[in-house]
């Protein structure tokens, strides 16, 4: 047997799967075999690398060379030139948009240099489907320590001292939650993992599960030991087939090794985990609704108290934590509370994973220390806004959150600081919007989502969100009246105050935060019947302005309906009867000459 000299870490997260990593794997294997390198060069599929924007991506080790947008056609050259002859293929290196330079080494790429990997420490290093590789990276040694060397009180104390707060949105201290549940008297208790991830645009939890499923299982075993539970459930949405398949493989492997089940590591402690597949309703991410759903009932929230720490799943003491929270636990146990708390701000410790998406160059998954300014995430890591457009705002916390406009981009990632500017940390969804986004339309989009997802149990949420949506639609269609703004604000305050659960209580946030920062846009829609961002179709004229038109003909050439008349050196004219209002000309015109 000879030694493997090259390991190709091929990203096999959902993002890269969709850009072609599965066919790439096959092509690589075949070509490596063909060129006689099968004994020296192997392909290993890993979880999400994070740099989804340039997928499929791969990292060639031990050199650390990063290849992006690799196509099947590139494979023969890659194998001959790099793997056989040792000449890395430059055209597949990442190209820095700033200076057009190619960057061969992954860790030199700005997207990676500003990040800090704790939750995602195994990303791109291990094969998530091989338990031994997780163990090779200290996996399950936190369980060993927690079961053998620590009393349940020590575990809770360590988690409390680390300062870790829940990553699912509300930011409740994990140690405190565990303490309450540990004090509840009962011979049956449960540990639940929330992998529902219902925010539009969020994919942190999915990626963590796809990348390092054992870290989540390990976190759950430690939590179970802390409160003395013997059964756990992972509530994951059916729409996450890859995450569920990797979790299933992980659970089976852990059971085989006796890391789940009876008498774990010969310590006398029993704990097992099952996956419960949810149908993907947003409200089922809310803790009490989630528990009802696992019980087999319709997922609807109930008033609290009683809190789940006293009466949760099947009325038994229960803790529910988010995927990222649980994946952080093993490192806290192994390295200690001080190690964890060394990173972050006064009230927000550790790192936070964000799913960066929207109008941003480097769409992907990023992990930064708490305290990192939003500006760093958007410009240094995210690479700024595409097509030289201007940044307008970033929506944090999805439909429950708010937007942060340009003037507040210095705000650090910190639960309290983000709340001060009217948004929330949320679970890590960060949707970036450029100058072409209409903020009224954005609020309308989220309200449409919310009223659809409202479970209907309480009136303020069920009826109130509908009314909010109607008013927003009215404004977007040019039928808004000045008093609508007051109604939006009054209704929002009422819904926030009187809704039963977090869904309704946070539902008006997108409306309130856009009103706070972009009230003039609402006024333009209402008073001038104009949409300044030119997104609301009923408010557009589909007319070319003679003075602004530079007669370039781009609109004419791109119109799919042949509805634009143009000849060289003449102003373009849109034929109303042919126009299908598709907005292509608005996007193509470089002079903002279409209204």
């Amino acid at each position, binding site marked *: 047997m000879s030694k493997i*000299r090259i390991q190709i870490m091929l990203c096999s997260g959902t993002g890269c799967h969709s850009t072609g990593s599965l066919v790439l794997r096959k092509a690589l294997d075949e070509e490596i075999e063909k060129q006689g390198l099968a004994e020296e060069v192997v392909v290993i599929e890993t979880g999400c690398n994070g740099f989804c924007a340039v997928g499929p991506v791969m990292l060639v080790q031990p050199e650390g060379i990063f290849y992006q947008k690799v196509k099947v056609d590139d494979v023969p050259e890659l194998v001959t030139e790099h793997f056989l002859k040792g000449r890395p293929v430059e055209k597949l290196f990442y190209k820095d948009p700033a200076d057009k330079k190619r960057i061969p080494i992954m860790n030199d790429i700005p997207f990676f240099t500003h990040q800090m990997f704790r939750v995602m420490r195994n990303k791109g290093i291990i094969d998530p489907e091989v338990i031994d590789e997780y163990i*090779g990276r200290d996996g399950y040694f936190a369980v*060993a320590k927690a079961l053998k060397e620590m009393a349940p009180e020590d575990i809770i104390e360590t988690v409390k001292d680390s300062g870790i707060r829940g990553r699912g949105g509300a930011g409740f201290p994990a140690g405190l939650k565990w303490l309450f549940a540990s004090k509840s008297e009962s011979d049956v208790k449960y540990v639940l993992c929330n992998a529902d991830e219902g925010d539009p645009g969020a994919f942190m939890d999915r990626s963590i599960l796809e990348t390092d499923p054992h870290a989540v299982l390990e976190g759950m075993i430690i939590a179970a030991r802390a409160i003395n539970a013997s059964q756990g459930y992972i509530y994951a949405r059916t729409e996450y087939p890859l995450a569920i398949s990797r979790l299933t493989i992980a659970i089976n492997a852990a059971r085989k090794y006796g890391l789940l089940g009876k008498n774990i590591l010969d310590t006398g402690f029993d704990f097992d985990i099952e996956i419960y597949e949810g149908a993907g309703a947003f409200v089922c991410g809310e803790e009490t609704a989630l528990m009802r759903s696992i019980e087999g009932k319709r997922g609807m929230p109930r008033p609290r108290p009683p809190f789940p720490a006293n009466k949760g799943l099947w009325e038994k003491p229960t803790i529910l934590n988010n995927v990222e929270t649980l994946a952080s636990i093993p490192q806290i146990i192994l390295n200690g509370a001080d190690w964890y708390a060394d990173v972050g701000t006064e009230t927000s410790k550790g790192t936070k994973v964000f799913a960066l998406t929207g109008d941003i160059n480097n769409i992907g998954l990023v992990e930064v220390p708490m305290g990192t300014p939003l500006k760093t995430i958007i410009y240094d890591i995210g690479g700024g806004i595409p097509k030289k457009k201007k940044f307008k705002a970033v929506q944090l916390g999805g439909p429950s959150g708010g937007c942060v406009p340009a003037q507040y981009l210095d705000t650090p990632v910190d639960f309290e600081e983000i709340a001060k500017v009217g948004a929330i940390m949320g679970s890590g969804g960060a949707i970036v919007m450029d100058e072409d986004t209409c903020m009224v339309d954005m609020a309308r989009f989220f309200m449409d989502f919310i009223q659809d997802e409202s479970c209907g149990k309480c009136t303020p949420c069920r009826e109130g969100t509908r009314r909010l949506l109607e008013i927003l639609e009215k404004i977007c269609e040019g039928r808004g009246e000045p008093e609508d703004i007051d109604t939006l604000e009054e209704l929002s305050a009422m819904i926030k105050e009187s809704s039963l659960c977090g869904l309704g209580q946070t539902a008006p946030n997108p409306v309130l935060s856009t009103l706070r920062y972009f009230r003039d846009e609402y006024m333009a829609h209402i008073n001038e019947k104009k949409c300044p961002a030119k997104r609301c179709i009923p408010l557009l004229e589909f007319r070319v302005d003679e003075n602004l038109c530079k007669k370039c003909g781009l609109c004419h050439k791109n119109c799919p309906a042949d509805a634009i008349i143009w000849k060289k050196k003449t102003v373009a004219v849109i034929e109303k009867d042919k126009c299908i209002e598709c907005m292509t000309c608005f996007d193509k015109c470089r002079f903002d000459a279409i209204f």
Partner: protein
Amino acid sequence: MAKLTIDDLKRIKESARRNLALRSEKGVIDILVHMGTCGIEAGARDVMKALLDETEKSGRTDIRVLAGPCGGMCGVEPTIVIKSDGAEPVIYQQMNPDKIQQVFASHVQKGEIVTAFVKAPETTGE
């Protein structure tokens, strides 16, 4: 598979680490085989295979065997370069699997340079 004990866990970790070393640890010794067309023509593939065999046999995880582009020494291929932490790189010329065994046993394992095969400095960069 029987239930693991903590000792089993440690054993699995050690053996997994060998496989993970290439991805997560820095090498102490880099051995570069020049793989230009001239090198391959002169037998660099066999040299590479011999090196990989020796490395595997040694059980060491701190050695990285790398392919590198033509070093411009076409007259004396196959050539390899051994870079150990803190030492000057040493170029060996006209390698074959037999010589590789000697170089590996002596230079890589014991730190003793096999001067007979070392490429003379004045011919560098031909």
